[in-house]
């Protein structure tokens, strides 16, 4: 009997620890500045939207702009990742050509490569191309994704494509179909789940990415949401806490919506590939 109760009790305890920071964030975002100091409870006594309007206009550039920039970067990254990784995955997973296994091994090796190692030389490279500090500073953030450098997604798709019965393309090939035709009409339609998983993870990871956006973006007008949020850290006065929480909360809403809509897919996605959120 004791064992029967222990499990649910433990699970509820863990759930409380997991949810506490999130609930506290939501509660604080809706508290007035006075209440943030006086009311140490989780939830506000009077729900006030003031933090949101204040936070939105806190800096010389509104958060609308930052959100638009983030949506642009994340959206184009999704397009780039899906389009370029699926091509590479088709080659590595389904076609036979010279040195294929070598390239596959190289791709796996880049999977393990810590991104921070490359940031200095990449910065120098992009700078010499005039891509940094220009009128469109998103090229360094986007171009790599159009060249399938996110090896996790290539790997995920290769794994998926290998599960598609080979008889399908063999039959098509015997009927005279080219590699492109097989790709377009057999493998691509059947790979849809892997493409969707890639799209969702691309969006969330890029939305949350900070390191590279911090390095490459220097003009306030071009800031994305994560970089803009760090501006709050400088102003640590009591009055800034509410707006800071309000904007932090808003910035997590898209990720949360993705989570709600695709929860099962995300969980299965990490299962099949070992990908991590």
């Amino acid at each position, binding site marked *: 009997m004791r064992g029967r109760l222990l499990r649910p009790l433990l699970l509820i305890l863990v759930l409380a620890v997991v949810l506490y920071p999130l609930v506290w964030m939501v509660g604080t975002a809706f508290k007035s500045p006075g209440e943030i100091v006086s009311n140490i409870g989780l939830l506000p006594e009077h729900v006030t939207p003031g933090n949101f309007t204040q936070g939105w206009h806190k800096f010389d550039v509104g958060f609308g702009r930052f959100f638009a920039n983030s949506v642009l970067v994340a959206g184009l990254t999704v397009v780039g990742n899906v389009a370029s990784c699926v091509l590479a995955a088709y080659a590595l997973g389904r076609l036979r050509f010279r040195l294929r296994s070598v390239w596959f091994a190289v791709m796996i090796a880049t999977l*393990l490569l810590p991104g921070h190692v490359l940031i200095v030389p990449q910065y120098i490279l992009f700078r010499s191309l005039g891509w940094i500090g220009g009128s469109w500073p998103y090229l360094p953030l986007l171009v790599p994704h159009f060249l399938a450098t996110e090896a996790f997604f290539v790997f995920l798709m290769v794994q998926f494509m290998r599960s598609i019965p080979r008889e399908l393309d063999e039959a098509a090939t015997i009927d005279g179909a*080219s590699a492109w035709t097989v790709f377009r009409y057999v493998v691509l339609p059947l790979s849809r789940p892997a493409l969707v998983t890639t799209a969702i993870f691309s969006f969330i990871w890029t939305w949350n990415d900070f*390191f590279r956006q911090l390095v490459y973006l220097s003009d306030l007008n071009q800031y994305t949401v994560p970089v803009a949020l760090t501006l709050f850290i400088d102003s640590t006065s009591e009055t800034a806490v509410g707006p800071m929480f309000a904007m932090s909360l808003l910035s997590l809403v898209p990720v949360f919506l993705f989570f709600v809509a695709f929860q099962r897919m995300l969980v299965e996605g990490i299962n099949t590939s070992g990908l991590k959120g």
Partner: protein
Amino acid sequence: MAAAPTAERPAIARRGPAAPRPGPGGRHRQNLPGYLFLSPWLVGFLLITAVPMLLSLYLSFTDYDVLTPLREVHWVGWDNYRRMVTADPSYWHAVRVTLTFALVAVPLKLAVALGVAVLLNRTFRGVGVFRGLFYLPSLLGGSVALAIVWVSMFNRDGAFNSLLALFGIQGAPWVNDPRWALETLMLLAIWQFGAPMVIFLAGLKQVPTELYEASSVDGAGAVRRFWHVTLPMLSPVIFFNLVLETIHGFQGFTSAFVLSNGTGGPVDSTLMYTLNLYINGFVRLDMGYASAMAWVFLVAVGLITVVLFRTGRFWVHYSDAEEH
């Protein structure tokens, strides 16, 4: 390329690279279409990965500082590496901080993930809801927004101290206290136990129930079954998560940046390796030195991965089915 500084992870996939399959379609090669389809990746690999890697190896032997043109940099030999080892105390400090972080946070995170996975490895109503909610921090936790919330929570007047006050305990100003700042970041990492938990759950589902039944018949209690059935059967998955999380753990950046406003403080207590690299490369513009740091990091992470794989031989059990 771990976006997710938040990001991170290798692959003991279901199967390794597929052996070329003999078969009717297998005999003829498709060199031209193969390379055409591969070309975006090839270009990306060469220009975005390989060339920059070689460039940074070269730069690590120079005094490059961004402001002087590449043509005019000075070759300084092993100076950058020597400086790291002998003349830069903050370098060693960062190494210590990073190792401490990884050695403490990674095992604890995996232990929590495994424990919760075992709790969830039952069919009951709402199990999916629990699993989903436990996974949520893994999606949110790497963001600047959540780091901000976390840091505020462990402020002097933060929610954590309010909670302690209910029990009459006077808490420390955790994030401003050099003795505790790194620990709060570890907690944030552990809080994101959901991703390895999901992988553990998938592994637990693969353990044949006959093994449990057999050991129960033999009189083994729950604890013994866990030690002698679950752990050995799960060891490949534990190993997979360990490699993944270790590599991930060494790359922590966002939370340390947010806590210290980019300085690694208080008193360098959160100076993670990557943050130190950022400060040297992009704040002090000492890019030659930062390149050297990056290469040492690469070699160190590589070595640690190799060591993990070597030691893995002694405790990772692959069942016959998996070896096949």
